[in-house]
């Protein structure tokens, strides 16, 4: 079916591109393609929220950062000193801790990445619920400003908290073994398999959203976008649906943040920057708003070019200008009542 064509294409690329690029002696590109996939995943979440439900969020980078930072913090925090603590002992007994060595070779004991990642995603969801309930009462540019404010607060927290590494962020984030032997981690040896992991995750994320927008709740989201009064009159609990899709968008960003952080082995406050949020919005706009495949294509391409340094020092400017251009040129965006 045509609806699933992009999903299929991404899934095929996930396995076909590594050997192909290796044969072309361009395997080095896989690194940026992997990172671009995670950024595209965060953009897809925003596409559901903004493109389909019509609720703009200028804080998508905040949720990405919450996911990344929380997973990094929890999986790097050394609990060795507290190993006498009954809680730590209990976690250890349950096999939820992993042993390693810190940067100085001292033994370390920290939460296993699976637990850290799950906690990080749950934290992002919790924050999304707490933020979403009040701000989703706002509409249009008021909602944009409120979510922008949220993103700024997250960046300030990341930058200002010593435990989160301040301006340097967190590093030495361990590999995340999704399955035994299947690790989200950087480094040359893991490059091809990590590309495959990221594109498979992206294909799954896309598939779930394609299913969503063509379903009962998806129609309800599109209907409330086009008019909350009519949607409400047909029995759609608009406040509830807006919150659900806001949380869903945040969860996509958090998953992307978690995976990219373990892939890179680090995360910095720049990930929470307002300009990053503008990027996500620009990508959804360039992709055609209520268009998952378009968002995906724009997300992959623009992030790939940006990561390759094609835009040079004009990087942020490119995304800003693109956003302005789309807003001015697209009749679909401008003529909305």
């Amino acid at each position, binding site marked *: 079916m045509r609806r699933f064509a992009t999903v299929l294409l991404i899934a095929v690329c996930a396995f076909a591109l590594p050997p192909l690029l290796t044969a072309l002696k361009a395997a080095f590109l896989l690194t940026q393609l992997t990172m671009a996939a995670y950024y595209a995943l965060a953009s897809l979440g925003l596409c559901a929220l903004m493109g389909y439900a019509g609720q703009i969020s200028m804080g998508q980078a905040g949720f990405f950062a919450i996911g990344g930072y929380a997973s990094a913090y929890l999986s790097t925090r050394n609990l060795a000193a507290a190993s006498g603590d009954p809680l730590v002992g209990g976690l250890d007994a349950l096999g939820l801790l992993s042993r390693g060595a810190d940067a100085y070779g001292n033994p370390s004991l920290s939460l296993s990445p699976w637990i850290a990642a799950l906690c990080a995603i749950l934290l992002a969801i919790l924050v999304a619920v707490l933020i979403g309930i009040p701000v989703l009462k706002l509409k249009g540019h008021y909602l944009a400003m409120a979510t922008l404010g949220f993103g700024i607060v997250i960046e300030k927290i990341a930058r200002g908290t010593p435990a989160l590494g301040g301006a340097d962020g967190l590093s030495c984030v361990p590999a995340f073994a999704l399955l035994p032997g299947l690790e989200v981690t950087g480094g040359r040896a893991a490059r091809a398999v990590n590309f495959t992991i990221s594109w498979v995750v992206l294909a799954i994320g896309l598939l*779930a*959203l394609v*299913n*969503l927008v063509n*379903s*009962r*709740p*998806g*129609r*309800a989201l*599109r*209907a409330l*976008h*086009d*008019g909350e*009064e*009519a*949607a*409400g*009159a*047909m*029995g*759609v*609990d*608009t406040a509830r649906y807006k919150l*659900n899709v806001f949380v*869903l968008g945040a969860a996509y960003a958090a998953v992307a943040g978690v995976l990219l952080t373990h892939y890179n082995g680090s995360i910095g406050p720049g990930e929470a920057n307002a300009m990053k949020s503008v990027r996500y919005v620009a990508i959804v706009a360039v992709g055609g708003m*209520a268009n998952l495949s378009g968002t995906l294509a724009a997300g992959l391409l623009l992030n790939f070019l940006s990561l390759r340094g094609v835009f040079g020092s004009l990087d942020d400017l490119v995304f800003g200008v693109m956003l302005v251009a789309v807003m001015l040129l697209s009749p679909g965006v401008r003529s909305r009542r």
Partner: protein
Amino acid sequence: MSLLEVASLARSFGGLRAVDGVSFSAEKNRITSVIGPNGAGKTTLFNLIAGSLEPDSGTVLFDGEDITGMKPFRVARRGMARTFQAIKLSRRMTALENVMIGRHVRSRAGFPQAMLASPWARREERRIREEAMKAIELLGIAEYAGRETGSLPFGVQRSVELARAIASEPKLLLLDEPASGLNIRETVGLAELIGRIRAEGISILLVEHDMSLVMDISDEIAVLNFGRKIAQGKPREIQSNREVVDIYLGEDDD
């Protein structure tokens, strides 16, 4: 017991008493009409009943339950559907998709089931589609089912909105000027259609300016003027009511 009982309902906008202590009821399996000149408060009354507006005072009982001030989506779940005086459709969705939204209250799939496309959710989705198609066929607009709604002729858009409301299988259907903008042939079709909808067991509350339509199909008529109910009765009684003829029927010859 009446299906809908409105008691002393009132709502002002600033100093304007748009609905001023209106009481009336709509019976099961009946077509009840509300008429009155422009600005009489008919749409406001609908909004108060359906929950789009909160009343300053008064009560609305629907099927024995007090729904006064209840949110529109909760009212809809209790079996009240409506069309709007100014059409409210999702313009970029197809006619079929719009009507499928009418099945929202009759289906259950949430985010997880939808995203995972569970077999159960897919079955439900097929049923939603079938039931929506039935409503579309009842309205005779099957040929437009796959077309984007914004591009459809006005009369067809009215039908899509009506099909969406019917698809929810409501107990009570609120129609706000369904004939406005329709030509004579379409209006005749509408009258026949409203009869068929009633025959399916859906009670109807109708606001309409087309007097021949109202007199033709209504079982009971309430007349509003400046927010107050000035008369109520069978079509024949209303037609011969002096006050009604003076303020409304006389001045209006369409």
